[in-house]
């Protein structure tokens, strides 16, 4: 009954005209950044963050969240019609989506992608609605050891599910922890690795790191390979999948939803990993694995469902525990702090309007996205016709403005450019960016939790295994490490190729 009351309360917030407007703007901007290759939700959030300073925190978070889950819908359009993922989470959709478009089935591919996204997104939201509040209550029992073990579990999962080498993924996580330590040490007040550079005293900003690693580096790579942005010329018809398509996809959508939701909850899981994992599992259990990559509709339905369910799941640790599971959540967490709110278990009591208003606005946003992505598909196709020669300066300009506008500091532009080079080289040398970003995001919290735990236990590491919740997380970490040693091939390994 209490849950129902909370949901009604949430809808009373999200149906306020201003909140509806900002929800629409958010999902519209999200679809746009999803459609445009190279410009992801973190860049869009950084760009629009200054606008939110004039809004109420509820409207602001509703809009910024809309960008995140809206991008998942938009990303599939580019994958299916151009064979270039608009969003990293839509990489897997290219494989079968583009093949379907080539077979004249672009309509059903776009349709199942939108419906799958809607179903998974909505079911994920039901999970978010049911889990977030009880978890926030349970999280009141979390101390530094529990937070430390949970974050360690996040690093382990992300490295385990990496599509490349697990050693390289762990190396990037270690590098991220070092980068996260740059700036002032919160406990002693000492500055670390700043070398007299003022910009570094507050630490490396997340926005320039993310936009450099994912935005600038992507443009640099594309400059080298001459992007042929050819939209597959086909009449988009039959957007509503037929009965056979539904029969083939419904299992994939269900499994994608479950995988995406649970991987989304875990720090480090997120939309990208879950889309990779769900595709791999779908291929493995299929009676016709040979059809994958050649236009199997399950190959579109599974990753698209998974990435949308993961976006709902990702809100759970952020809203309930104050732990961002990915870069977007870290930016939202930063935004909450700017509005004077303390993310974590107490958020539900301090700002119930924001907590329930944001969750229920996502139900509304998902319906808006279905309308935006099916009847208005022609509009997005037109945007895709912008040649890359015009598009890449725009992407770079948005990254520059986004990185600058966070602190009005040109030093952040230089940091972004440096991370652009690092990201470019990382891709050349086959290192993944996600573990590095997660470690930069969680680094300061991870360090505080570790140091506080050790101080609490007078220097004994047993504190992580003597407290039941922490022990549970540690067993999971241990299990993952053992599993990576004994299994020949990890779930996501080699998929990116």
């Amino acid at each position, binding site marked *: 009954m209490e849950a129902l009351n909370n949901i009604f309360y949430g809808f009373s917030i999200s149906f306020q005209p201003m909140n509806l407007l900002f929800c629409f703007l958010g999902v519209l901007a999200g679809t746009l950044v999803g459609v445009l290759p190279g410009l992801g939700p973190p860049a869009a959030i950084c760009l629009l963050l200054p606008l939110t300073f004039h809004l109420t925190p509820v409207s602001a978070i509703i809009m910024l969240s809309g960008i995140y889950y809206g991008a998942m819908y938009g990303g599939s359009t580019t994958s299916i019609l151009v064979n270039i993922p608009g969003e990293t989470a839509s990489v897997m959709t290219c494989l079968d989506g583009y093949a379907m478009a080539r077979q004249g089935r672009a309509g059903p591919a776009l349709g199942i992608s939108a419906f799958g996204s809607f179903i998974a997104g909505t079911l994920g939201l039901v999970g978010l609605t049911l889990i977030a509040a009880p978890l926030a209550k349970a999280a009141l029992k979390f101390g530094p050891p529990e937070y430390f073990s949970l974050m360690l579990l996040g690093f382990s999962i992300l490295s385990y599910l990496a599509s490349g080498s697990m050693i390289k993924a762990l190396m990037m996580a*270690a590098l991220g922890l070092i980068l996260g330590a740059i700036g002032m040490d919160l406990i002693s007040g000492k500055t670390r690795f700043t070398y007299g550079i003022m910009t570094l005293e507050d630490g490396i900003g997340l926005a320039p790191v993310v936009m450099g690693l994912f935005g600038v580096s992507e443009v640099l790579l594309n400059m080298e390979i001459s992007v042929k942005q050819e939209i597959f010329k086909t009449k988009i018809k039959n957007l509503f999948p037929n009965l056979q398509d539904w029969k083939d996809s419904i299992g994939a959508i269900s499994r994608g939803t479950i995988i995406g939701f649970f991987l989304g909850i875990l720090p480090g899981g997120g939309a990208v990993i879950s889309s990779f994992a769900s595709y791999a599992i779908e291929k493995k259990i299929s009676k016709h694995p040979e059809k994958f990559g050649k236009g199997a509709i399950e190959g579109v339905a599974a990753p698209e469902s998974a990435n949308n369910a993961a976006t709902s799941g990702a809100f759970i640790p952020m809203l309930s525990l104050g732990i961002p599971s990915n870069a977007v959540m870290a930016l939202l967490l930063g935004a909450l702090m700017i509005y004077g709110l303390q993310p974590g278990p107490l958020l539900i009591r301090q700002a119930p309007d924001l907590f329930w208003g944001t969750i229920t606005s996502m139900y509304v946003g998902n319906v808006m996205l279905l309308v935006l992505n099916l009847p208005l598909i022609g509009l997005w196709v037109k945007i895709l016709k912008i040649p890359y020669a015009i598009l890449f300066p725009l992407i770079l300009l948005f990254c520059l403005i986004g990185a600058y506008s966070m602190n009005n500091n*040109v030093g952040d532009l230089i940091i972004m450019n440096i991370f652009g080079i690092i990201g470019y080289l990382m891709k050349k040398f086959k290192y993944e960016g996600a573990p590095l970003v997660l470690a930069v995001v969680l680094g300061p919290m991870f360090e505080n939790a570790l140091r506080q735990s050790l*101080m609490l236990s007078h220097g004994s590491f047993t504190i992580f295994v003597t407290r039941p919740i922490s022990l549970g997380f540690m067993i999971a970490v241990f299990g993952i490490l053992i599993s990576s040693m004994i299994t020949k091939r990890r779930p996501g390994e080699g998929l990116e190729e």
Partner: protein
Amino acid sequence: MADRISGFFWLIFSVIIAEESYRLELGTLHSPKAGFLPFWASLALGVLSSILLLSTSIRRQKIKRIESIEFNKQRLHKVFYVLISLFLYGLLLNTFGFLLCTILLIFFLIGIVETQRWYVVIITTILIPFISYMIFAVWLRVQMPRGFLGF
């Protein structure tokens, strides 16, 4: 080859960071200090890069194939041009101001790096900076640097 180069680089990097962290003070397990986490993280990075180097040597002996890094030499200059323009943008933004800097950047990227037709260059060089100025500086009220020209 690629893994050997990167593994060696990270190994040296980890040694430098470990030394710097040690200088910051590690503290004790009872009371960890500012250098504690970076030291252990750099140690982990060092151990992992050593494993990478070792496994690369073993793999090389087994398969006798050199894995190389691929750069497209014909188009690599474009990557450098883009990078130089981005760094110059960052360095000149406060002096030249947002509008002038953006006009120069867009002209350089579309007109020189991508060599588009002259009318495309003129239209984009005018439209993109002015529209972005109106959206971000005027509408969203982002405090973009004004530079010596005052805008």
